[in-house]
C-alpha cells in the first residue's frame, strides 16, 4: 500500500472497487486460502466422526452470518453509491440476498422445532437456494464488472438501494413460500434429488465457475477478497457433499470455515476502508495546504511585480512632466526634451523586458531544452505506462522512423 508522496490522490486509489491490491494484500489472501485448504485437508479424515448435538449452533451461526453479511452488504452499497456501476449493485444485492435468506434458513432448521422429514427437505432446499443465489450474484458481478460506463438509469443510487432491498425481501419470501408449497405437495422428489450426484456436481461447478471468472477478471481489492469468500464457499460445499449428514465433524467444520472466511474478508474490507479514508483525509488536507501556499506565493509575487513595474512607470511620468516644463520655458530647451523622450522610450522597453522575465519566472520548468532522441522518449513512455495499458487491455504497435534527427526540447514537458 504505497502512499503517494505528493499527497494528492486520483479516483482509482481511493475506491475499494478500483484500487489494485498491493503485494502484501495478495500474499495475505493467498495465505488465508492456504490455511483454509490445510484445515480442510486436516478435517477430511475425521469428517464422519460424530459430535454431540449442540442446539445453539445453527442459531448462533445464522446470527453471525446475518450480521456479517448485512455489514458487508452495507459496505458494498456505499461503494455502489460512489461508483454507480451495475456490477456493484449485483454484488451488494447478492450479499443482501444472503442476509435475508439467513432468517428463513435458521427458522426452518428441523431439529430446532422437532419437525418431520418435510421440514428437513425445506431446510435443504433453502440451503441450496442460498448457495446458488450467492454464486449467481457473484457471477453477475464478474460479468458486469468490465462495462465501465455508468448507465443513465443509475443516476440516483439511494432509491436503487432501497428498491433492491425491498426486492430482495420480496424474492426471499416468495422463494420460501414456493419451497414450502412444493415441498408439501412433493415431499420426496427433492429429498431424492438432494442425495444425487448431479445436484452436488451442479452446485460445485457453479461455485467453481464463479471462482474461475473472478480469477480471470481480477483487478481490485474487492475482487481479491471475493475470491477468498468463494474458496470458503467451495470448501463448505465439498465438506457437506463428502459427509452427507448432520452433527459430524465435517458438518460443523464446513460451517465454521465459511464463517471464518466471511469474517476475515469483512474485517479486511473494513480496515481497508478505514485506511483509504485516512489517505483521503490526508490528501484533502494536503490539497488545502498547497492551495494556501499558492495563494501566499501569488500575493508575494504580485507585490514584487507592482514594486518592479512602478519604477519604469514613474520614470516615464516624471520625464513627461520634466519635458513639459522644459518646453514651457520662455526659451524652450529642446535638447533636454529630446533626452527626456529617449528616457521615456528606454523605460517602456525596460517594462516590457520586466514582464517577459516575470512570465519566465512563473513557468514551472524554466528553459531547459536539451537535444533528445524522440524514439527513445517514446519507448521510455511506453515502459512507464505498461501497467496501465495492460490493465485497460490496450496493445500498442510501434512504428518508428529510424532516421530521426535529435530535437531540442524539454524532456519532462514532452513526456
Amino acid at each position, binding site marked *: 500500500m504505497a502512499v503517494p508522496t505528493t499527497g494528492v490522490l486520483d479516483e482509482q486509489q481511493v475506491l475499494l472497487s478500483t484500487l489494485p491490491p498491493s503485494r502484501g494484500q495478495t500474499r495475505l489472501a493467498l495465505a488465508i486460502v492456504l490455511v483454509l485448504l490445510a484445515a480442510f485437508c486436516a478435517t477430511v479424515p475425521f469428517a464422519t466422526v460424530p459430535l454431540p448435538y449442540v442446539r445453539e449452533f445453527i442459531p448462533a451461526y445464522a446470527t453471525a452470518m446475518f450480521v456479517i453479511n448485512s455489514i458487508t452488504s452495507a459496505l458494498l452499497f456505499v461503494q455502489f453509491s460512489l461508483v454507480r456501476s451495475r456490477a456493484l449493485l449485483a454484488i451488494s444485492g447478492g450479499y443482501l440476498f444472503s442476509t435475508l435468506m439467513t432468517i428463513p434458513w435458521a427458522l426452518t432448521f428441523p431439529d430446532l422445532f422437532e419437525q418431520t422429514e418435510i421440514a428437513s427437505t425445506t431446510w435443504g432446499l433453502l440451503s441450496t437456494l442460498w448457495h446458488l443465489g450467492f454464486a449467481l450474484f457473484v457471477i453477475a458481478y464478474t460479468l458486469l464488472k468490465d462495462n465501465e460506463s455508468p448507465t443513465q438509469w443509475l443516476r440516483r443510487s439511494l432509491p436503487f438501494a432501497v428498491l433492491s432491498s425491498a426486492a430482495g425481501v420480496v424474492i426471499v419470501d416468495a422463494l420460501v413460500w414456493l419451497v414450502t408449497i412444493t415441498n408439501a405437495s412433493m415431499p420426496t422428489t427433492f429429498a431424492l434429488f438432494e442425495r444425487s450426484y448431479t445436484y452436488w456436481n451442479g452446485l460445485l461447478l457453479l461455485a467453481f465457475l464463479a471462482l474461475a471468472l473472478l480469477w480471470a477478471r481480477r483487478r481490485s481489492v474487492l475482487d481479491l477478497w471475493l475470491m477468498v469468500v468463494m474458496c470458503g464457499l467451495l470448501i463448505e460445499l465439498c465438506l457437506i457433499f463428502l459427509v452427507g449428514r448432520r452433527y459430524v465433524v465435517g458438518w460443523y467444520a464446513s460451517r465454521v470455515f465459511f464463517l471464518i472466511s466471511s469474517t476475515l474478508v469483512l474485517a479486511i474490507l473494513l480496515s481497508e476502508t478505514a485506511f483509504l479514508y485516512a489517505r483521503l483525509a490526508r490528501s484533502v488536507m494536503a490539497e488545502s495546504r498547497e492551495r494556501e501556499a499558492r495563494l501566499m506565493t501569488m500575493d508575494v509575487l504580485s507585490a514584487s511585480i507592482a514594486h518592479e513595474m*512602478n519604477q519604469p512607470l514613474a*520614470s516615464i511620468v*516624471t520625464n513627461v512632466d520634466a519635458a513639459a516644463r*522644459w518646453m514651457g*520655458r520662455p526659451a524652450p530647451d529642446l535638447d533636454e526634451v529630446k533626452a527626456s523622450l529617449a528616457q521615456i522610450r528606454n523605460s517602456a522597453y525596460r517594462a516590457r523586458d520586466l514582464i517577459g522575465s516575470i512570465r519566465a519566472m512563473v513557468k514551472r520548468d524554466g528553459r531547459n531544452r536539451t537535444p533528445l532522441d524522440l524514439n527513445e522518449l517514446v519507448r521510455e513512455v511506453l515502459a512507464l505506462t505498461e501497467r496501465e495499458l495492460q490493465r485497460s487491455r490496450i496493445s500498442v504497435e510501434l512504428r518508428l522512423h529510424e532516421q530521426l534527427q535529435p530535437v531540442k526540447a524539454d524532456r519532462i514537458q514532452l513526456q
Partner: protein
Amino acid sequence: MIIPAAILTYIRFMQGFSFTRNSPSLRRAVEDQQLQHRAIISIIDDDESMRCALKSLVTSLGFKAYTFASAEQYLDSSYLDDTSCLITDLQMPGLNGIELQQSLLAQGRHIPIIFVTAFPEERMRARAIEAGALGFLGKPFDSSTLVELIDKALEIGRKS
C-alpha cells in the same frame, strides 16, 4: 537723503513681499536669481532612469540637482551641508530611506526629506512622517505635488 533711502528700502521691501506673493512666475524669477547658487536638491535612488528623470525635472524648475546611487554615497559626499531638500527612495540596497533619515537626525541635520517609493505602505508612511519627513509619495507621482513639497522645503530652509 534719508527719505529716498527709506523709499528705496520700502520699495525693496515691497518687491520682496507683496508683488511676489501675487505673481508666481515673477516670484519664481526672483527666486531663481536669489536661490540660484543656494538651492541644491539632492536626489537618491538606486534606479538610474528615475535618477535622470528627477534630475531633469528639478533642473527644469531652476534648481541645482545632484544625484546619488545610494544613501552611503550621499553621506560620504560633500553636499550634506548645502542640500536644501532631499528627495530619496525608500527601498534601496544598503541603507534604506528611513535609516538615512535617522542617520541625518543623529548627526543633527534637519534637512527636509521627501520620500518617493514604488511600494507605499501605510506603516512606512507613518514612520517617515513621524520622524519628520516632509512628504511621502508613491511612484508614479504627479510632479505638481512634488513641486509643492519642494517649495515647502525651501520655505522651511528660508525661515531657519
